[in-house]
């Protein structure tokens, strides 16, 4: 706490008079500069890979694949942010994915078919719900030991990393279970796991309307309370940019057409004659990405609009203050880890659906990628700081690098080196940025 300034306080938020820099302009108008920086970084990476790969990176097909590849880590990263914000860590998520994935696999592969018949249309939803429930249970269990017994989260989840991996093996004696139920497979993308053209445009349209509505409501709310409004042109620009990005993304997914063999098979199935220029069936938004978007919205809502989220941040900022404010901190911690567990369940479902198989080594090392995503996205391991969109961007940056390097035929060991360097660099930049911001 800095000791008194003699002349108390320069005026904090100056009226928007002379703009000192783009940075301060953005900040005055509540636009996250760090996020903007990360988006810029992502664009640079994408453009670079596009040129280096001879023009294959920024194609609908590659971007579509990339979005699916990122999904499972990104889904978990949204939860890991909250865990890290609360001054905890979860090292067991990879092993949890393993055990939850194996249980979901064996449910749809053996147990449910013997109970209600193979190919039953309910199999996928029962399996999914069971997986989420198991994830929540494991999460709550670990959270309770952390909150009520007081064992540090590092230790509890390290133990979990070993224990759940063991259980993953025990579930099916190390067997590989494949294939998954036909409906369940859709959760993982693939040639059938996407919304199709119309559905995607509808989702895009709804998203665009949603963005505009949020901006409008935001303005209205500020006016009602007499707060300073963002300049109209800025709000309009944000709305336009937002819609362009969303609709642009939908357009990209709709530009990825079903591979010819599969299109022909569909044409045959439906008795359509094969047209001269070929049959172009747009795939649209892949289901894993749709799930990711849904998860992002929900987690963003939880973090920013619910008391639960506020409490997580306050525990991370000052645990003692949270207790003194009357917050039930232990309960909050348990719920945080339970949330992480539910997200693990979702991610495990996406993972086994995508691979169309479950192996007992499923999810190995996922915890590292998830933590890296959260941290590259701005979460501080000291607690109190982190954002949901940041984590998603972090995951996207890391996956873009990895997939891009594979395309460029960079060998696997070198890929690992690069990813490690990027991780440390990103956090170093973030740390020094934060330090400078604090000194401002």
């Amino acid at each position: 706490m800095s000791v008194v300034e003699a002349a108390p306080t320069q005026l904090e938020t100056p009226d928007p008079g002379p703009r000192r820099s783009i940075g301060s302009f953005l900040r005055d108008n509540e636009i996250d500069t760090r996020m903007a920086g990360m988006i810029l970084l992502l664009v640079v990476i994408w453009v670079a890979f596009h040129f280096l790969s001879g023009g294959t990176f920024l194609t609908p097909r590659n971007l579509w694949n990339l979005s699916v590849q990122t999904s499972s880590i990104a889904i978990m990263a949204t939860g890991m942010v909250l865990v890290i914000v609360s001054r905890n860590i979860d090292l067991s998520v990879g092993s949890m994915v393993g055990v939850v994935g194996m249980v979901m696999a064996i449910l749809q592969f053996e147990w449910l078919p013997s109970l209600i018949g193979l190919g039953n249309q309910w199999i996928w939803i029962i399996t999914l719900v069971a997986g989420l429930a198991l994830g929540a249970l494991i999460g709550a269990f670990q959270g309770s030991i952390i909150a009520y017994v007081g064992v540090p989260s590092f230790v509890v989840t390290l133990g979990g990393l070993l224990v759940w991996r063991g259980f993953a093996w025990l579930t099916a004696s190390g067997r590989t279970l494949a294939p998954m139920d036909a409906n369940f497979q859709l959760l993982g993308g693939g040639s059938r796991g996407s919304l199709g053209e119309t559905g995607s445009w509808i989702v895009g349209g709804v998203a665009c309307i949603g963005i505009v509505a949020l901006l409008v409501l935001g303005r209205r709310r500020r006016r009602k309370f007499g707060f300073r409004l963002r300049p109209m042109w800025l709000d309009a620009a944000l709305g336009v940019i937002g819609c362009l990005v969303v609709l642009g993304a939908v357009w990209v997914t709709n530009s990825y057409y079903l591979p010819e063999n599969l299109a022909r098979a569909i044409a045959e199935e439906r008795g359509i004659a094969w047209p001269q220029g070929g049959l172009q069936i747009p795939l649209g938004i892949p289901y894993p990405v749709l799930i990711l978007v849904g998860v992002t919205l929900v987690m963003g809502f939880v973090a920013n609009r619910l008391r639960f989220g506020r409490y997580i941040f306050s525990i991370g900022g000052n645990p003692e203050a949270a207790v003194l404010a009357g917050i039930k901190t232990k309960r909050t911690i348990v719920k945080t880890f339970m949330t992480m567990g539910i997200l693990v369940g979702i991610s495990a479902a996406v993972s086994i659906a995508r691979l169309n198989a479950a192996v007992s080594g499923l999810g190995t090392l996922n915890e590292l990628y998830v933590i890296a995503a959260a941290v590259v996205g701005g979460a501080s391991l000291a607690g109190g700081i982190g954002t949901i969109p940041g984590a998603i961007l972090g995951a996207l940056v890391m996956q873009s690098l990895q997939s891009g390097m594979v395309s460029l035929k960079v060998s696997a060991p070198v890929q690992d080196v690069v990813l490690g360097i990027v991780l440390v660099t990103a956090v170093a930049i973030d740390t020094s940025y934060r330090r400078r911001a604090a000194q401002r």
Partner: protein
Amino acid sequence: MTAPSTGKPPLVEMRNMSVSFGGVHAVKDVTITLQEGEVLGVVGGNGAGKSTLIKTLSGAQKADSGEIFIDGEAVQIHSPRDAKNLGIETIYQTLALADNIDAPGNMFLGRELTSRWNTLDDSSMEAATREIMGRLNPKFQNFKTPVASLSGGQRQSVAIARAVHFNARILIMDEPTAALGPAETEQVRELIRQLQREGIGIIMISHDIHDVFDLSDRITVMLQGKLVGTVNRGEATMDEILAMIIIGKLPDEVTTKELEQLHG
């Protein structure tokens, strides 16, 4: 020695409070009272037990034995929430602010205003905070940045605003002026006088003898967990108070020689 009797029960009465940690008696059988509109200074050296005693009132510490009465009625204070529900607000020495959250968030921490869908109503909280700070500290403009970026004095005003806003009847202040400069200290003093006029009872822990002397109506001294005594303002000199703090002897017991020795 005792408070002027008005026929009404005291605002706060803490009777025979005892707290011990692992065999050490931090507070031993202490009884204090507080009247409406009164400032009670609680002083003592390190380890005197004053913070611990007051924490039992603010809900941050459980007492091993003793009773607390508010307006003459016995109450149970098991948590900070219980204390707040009884109209007891505390401004801790460390301020207990969450550094990563902005001023409105800290103001309403644990008591957030919610919309009818049970979501956080950040706008209402911001508006309310602007109003309160406008009265308390009109120069304060920083409503959207985390309080970590505020100066010490501004953080103090947020902590005070938080304590004052929720219709506290009893305000506990732990070392309120410790980290403040002269101008801000004067502000705090003015605030205390104003709150007194509104009938709020204030318990002030301080090691600054001058502040205590200036502001308190009565002064309670503790030494090594025990109550040395309580004097009205004007009934003892600063040296006599010092003697109570350091040697534990009441004004009518202490000798002139001992008083001289205090300044060693």
